């Protein structure tokens, strides 16, 4: 396993797709410090107020880049996403001046694998 796999994190680079006037990434996010974390189906810890990927649209830029449903987004282009409101997260992802966003995501499957490997 490479070093960053051990940390359970994945770097995903999404090239935004231009659709008319908008640049879309092709996924949906949920969560945020102003939201109710107990309703998050993807989080392990039900007090986690981070930003999670709730849906990835078929054939969209996110799917192509390798983003999966249930990923927790830690950083976007260097901006922290663990302590942001829902609207701030949306804004950071949909900046019109950026054509490419580089996300740092955590995957549960990865985390579980890391934990298991650490226990064993």
């Amino acid at each position, binding site marked *: 396993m490479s070093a960053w796999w051990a940390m359970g994190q994945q770097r995903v680079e999404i090239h935004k797709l231009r659709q008319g006037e908008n640049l879309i*990434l092709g*996924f*949906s*996010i*949920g969560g945020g410090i102003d939201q109710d974390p107990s309703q998050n189906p993807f989080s392990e810890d039900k007090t986690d107020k981070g930003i999670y990927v709730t849906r990835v*649209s078929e054939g969209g830029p996110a799917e192509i880049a390798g983003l999966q449903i249930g990923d927790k987004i830690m950083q976007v282009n260097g901006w922290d996403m663990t302590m942001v409101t829902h609207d701030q997260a*949306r804004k950071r*992802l949909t900046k019109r001046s950026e054509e490419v966003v580089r996300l740092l995501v955590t995957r549960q499957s990865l985390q579980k694998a890391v934990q298991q490997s650490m226990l064993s």
Partner: protein
Amino acid sequence: MVGIQEDEEMDSLGFRVTVGGSVPGEDCRWLSAWGGLSVAQCLGRTVGGSVPGEDCRWLSAWRGLSVAQCLGRTVGGSVPGEDCRWLSAWGGLSVAQCLARTVGGSVPGEDCRWLSAWRGLSVAGFSLRQAHPSSKIESLRVTVDFLKVPLGLKKPVLKEVAVGPPKRPQPAALERYKARRSDAMDTESQYSGYSYKSGHSRSSRKHRDRRDRHRSKSRDGSRGDKSVTIQAPGEPLLDNESTRGDERDDNWGETTTVVTGTSEHSISHDDLTRIAKDMEDSVPLDCSRHLGVAVGATLALLSFLTPLAFLLLPPLLWREELEPCGTACEGLFISVAFKLLILLLGSWALFFRRPKASLPRVFVLRALLMVLVFLLVVSYWLFYGVRILDARERSYQGVVQFAVSLVDALLFVHYLAVVLLELRQLQPQFTLKVVRSTDGASRFYNVGHLSIQRVAVWILEKYYHDFPVYNPALLNLPKSVLAKKVSGFKVYSLGEENSTNNSTGQSRAVIAAAARRRDNSHNEYYYEEAEHERRVRKRRARLVVAVEEAFTHIKRLQEEEQKNPREVMDPREAAQAIFASMARAMQKYLRTTKQQPYHTMESILQHLEFCITHDMTPKAFLERYLAAGPTIQYHKERWLAKQWTLVSEEPVTNGLKDGIVFLLKRQDFSLVVSTKKVPFFKLSEEFVDPKSHKFVMRLQSETSV
């Protein structure tokens, strides 16, 4: 007053007690820190002399002068029994001036405001209490003032002091003052001998003299000015300093010159309006207006009597040939009678009114109606004359029916009149913005379809009770703000003379240079405004307290109480009794807010009497003075103008349309009226089912990016 206590060398605060000498660096504030010790105690510590009955507050009123200065100003020795509050009340006059005016024994007709601090003692009473060596003190003071001569600034002031107490420059001053500013409060005070008012004249005389001096000095200065082209903006004329230095705090409104562009000898604004009003009153009666009314009245009478004539003529002329009147016919008599009665009442209600205004052009709708009535009556008479009188119609019922039809037609014309004259203008179609040209007071009104002249009358009715009264004194920036602008640029042309080119070029150059010069007058203006606000609020507070206190002195006599008839007063006497204690505060407040032309002493007394009669509180009494009310509130003859001029590009009998602008002019100001159409509202309906109001918790929002 008697009973000087022994004092210590150090007082409780540890300050060294001053003895009649200067203690450099000490502030008078420590005296106020003694918080109301009797003067004996205070002065016992300051001067080596006993001055019975004084209060320490006078010293604190001098705001941080050093004791040396305080003492230097009050004494040419001890001035027994004087209260320096009157000094601050006179707006920072130098002591020399104050003393020159008060001392010298009893000076009848003097300003007794400071005496009112002694609770209404008469001047005679004061002079009795005054020590004998008044003349000696006077001469001492004159010496002191002579010493100030080398400073140069005080020299003109000396002229008044050196004149000496026995001479009375006041009558001349009062006359001149009266001619200059017809201040009603002062003219009244002359006759009533209410002495506190004459101080107003004196200080404004001083102010006017000062203005003269300023003018003469500036004239002298400009003679040497020809070589200077540009004056630095921050450099004030010497006289500005001298005028401003002494005119501190309280009487700012009284002693500040407002730059109005009139010279001292021109007639004042009030004189102008008085002259104009005389001219208006002497205009001969407007015959055309009365002609219109006369024509209308005769027409109405004629049309009212016509049915009666129709009914009465046949029996008078050919009774034998006439068929007898049956039941139906007699029934018609009743209907004619009642319809005529209704017509009479309706006409009385609608038309019998004093006209509100005389319009410049004919009132189109009314003229139309009169023509209609005339035609109606004439055509009925024609028909009657030809077909009934000539033919000697036998059937009386036909005649009666004819008369009934005329009365019906007249009732319908009356209905038409109601609709055209009264109802049509009620539904709002236009929004008018009315702005007063001098100070920008504006209001919005909604009107219906009216001709321009009728709208003008309607607006004037609203003006008198909606707009605050026009106060010319509030219009101009104070002199201290504008003074900096007086120093202007001079442009010299070098080379050949080309006059036509140069004038426009010169003015443009001057304007450009003036714009580029750094102008700090906005700063001045801001601080003046802030100062003025503060002063007004201070005066207002004093006024409110004075009035509240005054009102506590009287109460209504209850029926059960038996009082000595000498003690019982009617409202007028009660008002006079409590007026004295609030008069000074009221006068100063009115002067600060520049309202004094509107309120004569008589009017204030009347209002006070009114409020006392109706059990009003002090606050209700004061609402009239604390805010500028609408014009109709003030004395009728003075402020209600009868003559307005309508200035309009469109003919004034045209109806209102969107975008019309017209003016209503008086001599000193005008009302600018602009019209806008009320927009057409598209109202649409949306049905909301009450059961459709459903809610869910917002727990997790999902946004697609």
